[in-house]
C-alpha cells in the first residue's frame, strides 16, 4: 500500500437535507485538498443524517444521481468515502457508502447488518446488503464496513482475508449508557473493538463517527485511525466536530504482519468446513 494521508471529517450532518450536507462535504473535501490528504472518510449516512424514518425514500439517490457530480469531480483530487441512502434497482433502499476516486464511484458497500433493536429501527426502512468485499484503489486494497457491520466480527475477518489493508468504517453511533466510562459505555466498547481488529487482522482501521444531535440522541464522535498493531494513531475529540488527519504507510503494515503472521496462518478451509457443519446441524433454523 502507498504512504497516504488519511482524513476523517467528523461532522454533524443535517437530518434529511442532502443539499446542505453536500455543501458540508464540499467544504471538507476542499480542506482535505489544501492539506494534501489522499483519502477523506465521512461518517455513516453523511449526506442524509441518520434517524430518517419515513424520510428514507425522499432522500435516496441512485449511484448515478447528478447530485453526486460535485463529489465525483472533487474525487479527482482526493478520494472519498461518502455515506448515503442508495436507491438500488427494484427500489430497494440501502444504507450505503461509496468509495469515490478519479472522478467515479469505484465501490459501493451496502450495510449488511441493519440494527433493529434498542434505539435502532433500520430493517423497517432499509434493505440489507448481500456482500462484503475488499476492493483495489490507487492507495491500496480496502474494504468498507458500516457501523453495525463491525459488531459481527466475521465481516472484519472477511475484509482482511480478502486482502484489505485498510478497513474503512463510517459510523453514526449514538451515545448510550451513563457511568464512569468516557463519554458513554458503548463508546468505550467501540474503542476496544476497533483496536482489537487492527491487532487481530493486522490492518489499519479508520473509524469515522459523527457528532451532533437527532431527536435528543447524541452522536459521540471520537473518530480514530488504528494501526496494524492495534494502537490508536490519531483520535478525534468526543462530541465536537473535527478534521482529523494522519499518515498511514505500508511499512508499518509489513512490520506488523512480519511480527504477527496471523493472516498467513489463517485457515479459511477450516472456518468454511465448520461453518457448513454448524449450518447443516441447524437444518435451516437460524439458531
Amino acid at each position: 500500500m502507498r504512504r497516504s494521508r488519511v482524513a476523517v471529517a467528523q461532522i454533524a450532518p443535517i437530518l434529511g437535507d442532502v443539499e446542505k450536507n453536500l455543501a458540508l462535504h464540499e467544504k471538507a473535501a476542499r480542506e482535505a485538498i489544501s492539506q494534501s490528504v489522499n483519502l477523506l472518510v465521512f461518517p455513516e449516512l453523511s449526506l442524509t443524517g441518520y434517524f430518517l424514518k419515513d424520510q428514507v425514500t425522499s432522500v435516496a439517490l441512485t449511484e448515478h444521481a447528478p447530485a453526486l457530480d460535485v463529489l465525483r469531480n472533487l474525487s479527482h483530487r482526493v478520494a472519498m468515502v461518502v455515506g448515503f441512502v442508495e436507491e438500488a434497482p427494484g427500489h430497494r433502499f440501502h444504507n450505503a457508502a461509496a468509495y469515490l476516486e478519479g472522478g467515479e464511484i469505484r465501490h459501493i458497500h451496502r450495510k449488511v447488518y441493519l440494527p433493529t433493536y434498542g434505539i435502532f429501527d433500520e430493517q423497517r426502512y432499509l434493505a440489507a446488503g448481500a456482500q462484503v468485499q475488499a476492493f483495489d484503489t490507487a492507495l491500496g486494497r480496502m474494504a468498507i464496513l458500516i457501523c453495525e457491520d463491525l459488531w459481527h466480527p466475521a465481516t472484519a475477518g472477511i475484509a482482511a482475508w480478502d486482502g484489505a489493508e485498510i478497513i474503512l468504517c463510517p459510523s453514526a453511533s449514538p451515545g448510550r449508557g451513563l457511568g464512569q466510562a468516557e463519554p458513554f459505555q458503548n463508546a468505550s466498547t467501540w474503542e476496544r473493538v476497533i483496536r482489537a481488529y487492527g491487532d487481530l487482522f493486522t490492518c489499519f482501521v479508520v473509524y469515522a463517527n459523527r457528532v451532533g444531535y437527532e431527536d435528543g440522541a447524541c452522536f459521540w464522535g471520537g473518530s480514530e485511525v488504528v494501526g496494524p498493531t492495534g494502537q490508536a494513531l490519531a483520535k478525534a475529540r468526543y462530541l465536537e466536530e473535527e478534521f482529523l488527519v494522519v499518515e498511514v504507510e505500508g511499512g508499518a503494515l509489513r512490520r506488523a504482519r512480519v511480527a504477527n503472521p496471523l493472516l498467513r496462518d489463517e485457515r479459511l478451509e477450516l472456518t468454511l468446513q465448520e461453518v457448513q457443519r454448524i449450518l447443516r446441524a441447524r437444518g435451516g433454523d437460524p439458531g
Partner: protein
Amino acid sequence: MVDLRLNCDTVRRVLTGFIDNEVRKAGFERVVVGLSGGVDSSLSAFLAAEALGPQNVWGILMPYRTSNPESATHATLVVEALDIHNLTVDITPMVDAYFATFTDADNVRRGNKMARERMTILFDHSARLGGLVLGTSNKTELLLGYGTLYGDMASAVNPLGDLYKTQVRQLALHLKVPTVIVEKQPSADLWAGQTDEAELGFTYKEVDRVLYLLVDQRYEVADLIADGFDERFVRAVYHKVQASQYKRRLPVIAKVSSRTIDRDFRYPRDWGR
C-alpha cells in the same frame, strides 16, 4: 449491580449541547422555565444558562397562596446565582376562582389544576418572549407517572428526562446548584407538608435502584425477587410504571386510514430541522 454514578463532566456537556442544539434547531434562542425552588427546575435552569447564556433564560415563579415560602426563597437563590431574567405570577386568583364553583375538590384535583395553570402561564410566556418551554421532569417521576399530564409534564425540550432523581442530585451538586436546594426533601408543594417520598411511600434512592434494573438493565420482576428485592415493593413499582404508560404517549388514535399518525406515519421530531 447498581451503579448510578455519573461522569458529570460528560453529562453536563451532552445536556448543554442538547439544549443549545434543540432550541436553535427549532428557530429559538431563549427558554422559559418554571422555577419551583426544587432541584429539578433549578438544575434545568443552570444547564440552560450555561447552554444559552443567562440573558436567554427566563425563570418564572408561580406560587399559590399555600405554597411553602421557602420555595420562592430557593427559586430566588437560583435567579440570583445565575443572573437570569425572572418574573413572578401568583396563580391564586385563577385557581381560587375556579374552585369557588367546585368547593368539594380534593387535594389531587387542586394540585393538578395548579400544575396545569402553571403550564398555561409558561406556554403563554413562550409566545410572549419567543422562548421554548424547558422541561424539568426527571426519569424517575416520568416512569412512575408522578406528575400531572399536560401540567408539569408538558414542555418543548427536556434535558433531565433520562436522569434518575438521584442522578439529578449528583449533577446538581456538580453544577453548584445551592446545596440547600439539592439536599432538601423533594416536594411537589401542592399542599402544606407534602413530600414526594411520603406520598410515594418509598425513597428515591430505593426506587431508582429498582427502576434502573427494570428499565435500563432489562431485569424481569422475577429476577429482582430472586435477587432478594422485596416482592411487594417491586410489584408496586412495576405497576406504577405500567399504569402510567398513557402519560408518556400521545393520545391513542383510532386507526382507520392506511397511514396513521405515529403508527405508520413516522418522522423524526427533528424532521426538517
